[in-house]
């Protein structure tokens, strides 16, 4: 434990060198290889901050989120929550700790038990952790209001709600145990744009008002831009770049981050697209895992694994760490800037009429 640091400075969540491989076997049960889902990830999430983990399908985001809560046991590495070693906890102690760490899933249709009313779903964690005893019902009403739903809806069943409403209910349930850390695994990805905006605004409000520490797992860079303080970009089980959100979007360094940003719809499409598909996580490329698609790859990239490193010059200038895992991060050409939307006073004014966050219907 880091006793030399003042308590407030210890990040709420610290991951170090985490590894998770999923072995697969042939029909005779012999081990045939393993999916390198998470392969040496080190990250820290300061209290009250939002860290986003981004990357394309299969890069290991969900696995990392589950390992971080010890819902899946890592093969190697360490895991600390509030300075405490989570991997050393016995099952009962871990269960008690879970009160402080909650997960919200992508699919609002699967994450609620169809046989439980909204009230029962939200009361369950209250009873499990003996919170608000004797006034559970009032607490459920508070939580529903907190997520923008009318308390009268408590008696209804999940199937009576739309996708966005169900995600609000799932959020209320996650908040019921008064967690300090919430991990959202694609919490708005299944929602339509207009409803997604409602839930993104709600998450932003909750993070601010409740001082939540939040890990947002998402493949949607727009949503990440809107919510995150720091961003970690994953590719084939490893972090390739980690930086304050503003820096990551405005001055991306890793060639993969740059390609990802350039590919976002609305950025113009045709320019400098990545070729090829993501290689198999069963046998990731040697050296830099991105080298098979990287326009800047050189011989060294196949031989030596690039470490996630900062740029000494900038850090000494007092800026928050901007880490990149690329041998040539200092000699790459400048990144193409992302497109700036033209300032449009008329549109901004008209859009300001769409700005509250209540659910008027239902």
């Amino acid at each position, binding site marked *: 434990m880091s006793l030399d640091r003042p308590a407030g400075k210890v990040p709420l969540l610290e991951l170090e060198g985490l590894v998770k491989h999923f072995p697969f076997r042939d029909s005779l049960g012999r081990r045939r290889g393993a999916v390198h889902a998470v392969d040496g990830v080190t990250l820290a999430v300061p209290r009250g901050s939002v860290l986003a983990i981004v990357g*394309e399908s299969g890069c290991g985001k969900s696995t990392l989120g589950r390992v971080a809560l010890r819902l899946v046991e890592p093969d190697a590495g360490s895991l600390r929550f509030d300075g405490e070693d989570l991997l050393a906890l016995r099952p009962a102690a871990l269960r008690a700790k879970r009160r402080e760490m909650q997960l919200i899933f992508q699919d609002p249709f699967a994450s609620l038990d169809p046989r439980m009313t909204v009230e029962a779903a939200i009361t369950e964690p209250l009873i499990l952790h003996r919170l608000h005893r004797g006034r559970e019902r009032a607490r459920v009403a508070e939580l529903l209001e907190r997520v923008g739903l009318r308390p009268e809806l408590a008696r209804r069943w999940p199937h009576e709600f739309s996708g*966005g409403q169900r995600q609000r209910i799932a959020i209320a349930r996650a908040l019921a145990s008064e967690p300090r850390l919430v991990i959202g695994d694609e919490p708005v990805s299944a929602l339509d744009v*207009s409803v997604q905006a409602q839930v993104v605004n709600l998450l932003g409000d909750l993070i601010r008002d409740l001082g939540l520490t939040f890990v947002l797992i998402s493949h949607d860079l727009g949503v990440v*831009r809107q919510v995150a303080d720091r961003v970690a970009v994953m590719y084939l089980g490893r972090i390739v770049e980690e930086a304050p959100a503003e820096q990551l979007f405005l001055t991306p360094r890793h060639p993969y981050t740059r390609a990802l940003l350039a590919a976002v719809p609305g*950025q113009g*499409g045709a320019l400098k*697209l990545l070729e090829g598909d993501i290689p198999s996580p069963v046998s990731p490329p040697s050296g830099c895992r991105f080298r098979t698609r990287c326009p800047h790859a050189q011989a060294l990239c196949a031989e030596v694994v690039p470490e996630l490193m900062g740029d000494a010059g900038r850090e000494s200038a007092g800026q928050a760490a901007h880490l990149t895992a690329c041998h040539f991060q200092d000699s790459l050409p400048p990144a193409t800037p992302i497109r700036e*939307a033209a300032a449009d006073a008329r549109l901004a004014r008209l859009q300001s009429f769409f*700005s509250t966050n209540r659910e008027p219907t239902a």
Partner: protein
Amino acid sequence: MNALEVDRLSIEFRTDRGVLQAVDRISFAVEPGRTLAIVGESGCGKSATALAILGLLAENAGRLGDIRLAGELLTPEAQRQARGRELAMIFQEPMTSLNPAFTAGEQVAEALRLHEGLSPRDAMARAVAMLERVRIPEAARRAKQYPHQLSGGMRQRVMIAIALACRPRLLIADEPTTALDVTVQAQILALLDELKRETGTAVVLITHDLGVVQDHADEVVVMYAGRVAERAPAARLFAEPQHPYTIGLLGAAPRLDSKRPRLASIEGTVPDLRDPPPGCRFAPRCPFAIEVCATTPPLREIAPLHFAACHRAPLA
């Protein structure tokens, strides 16, 4: 001449819980070599429109209105004739449209044979060339593989090769990249643009992503609850959107260049199409609604080629 004309198309579905009016008198046209995007949220009638053009609506559907392909009225018989020839399609999940029992090469070759009457051997050689053209690496080897051996991006490339093998007049692409990762999505959409330029095929691109529309469409139809809310040339729609729904949607999408203080939030949810609200279907969610919105707003041309179905358009 327009490659496609859709004139007051309406689609109803008979269901156990009553009749659902999925599409209500929508009209649009696409010129050869141009891309028209149909954009809107889940359930607004995008796929129903696509299926009506293709003549592939479900049994419980009823359709009114005219559809013309290069000026010819599309009867069900004409649709059957045109499908896979003048009229091609790609869908979101290529796995469901590809035949798992045939290799990628065989399926492209089959399309070529149908269209050009080639011998099996010539068709296979051309198929490999097509697969190269849609930038499948090692096309000759991939041609011998079955769909399940290909990645999602590669399967969609095979679908494009099949669709374009017969140089169709019209390609309907219903969320062709929604299931793919962004870097692969960008490749596929760029490829479609390139092939479209080469072949002069008209494209109807169905998407829920305004970013995709911005990058790839010439013309846009914004649908809400089965009706056209707004229709305009793409540049004009983004520069001066007029329908409150379009304005809200644009504000609801996060931006990459800067964090918005708050996303525009269109309150509530889309109406149940078995029992839509009277008058303007957007009224229950519209911050601009006034008394007259209880009557249906007609689609009016409020600037050249720019149409909006809103009593209050143009909004200053």
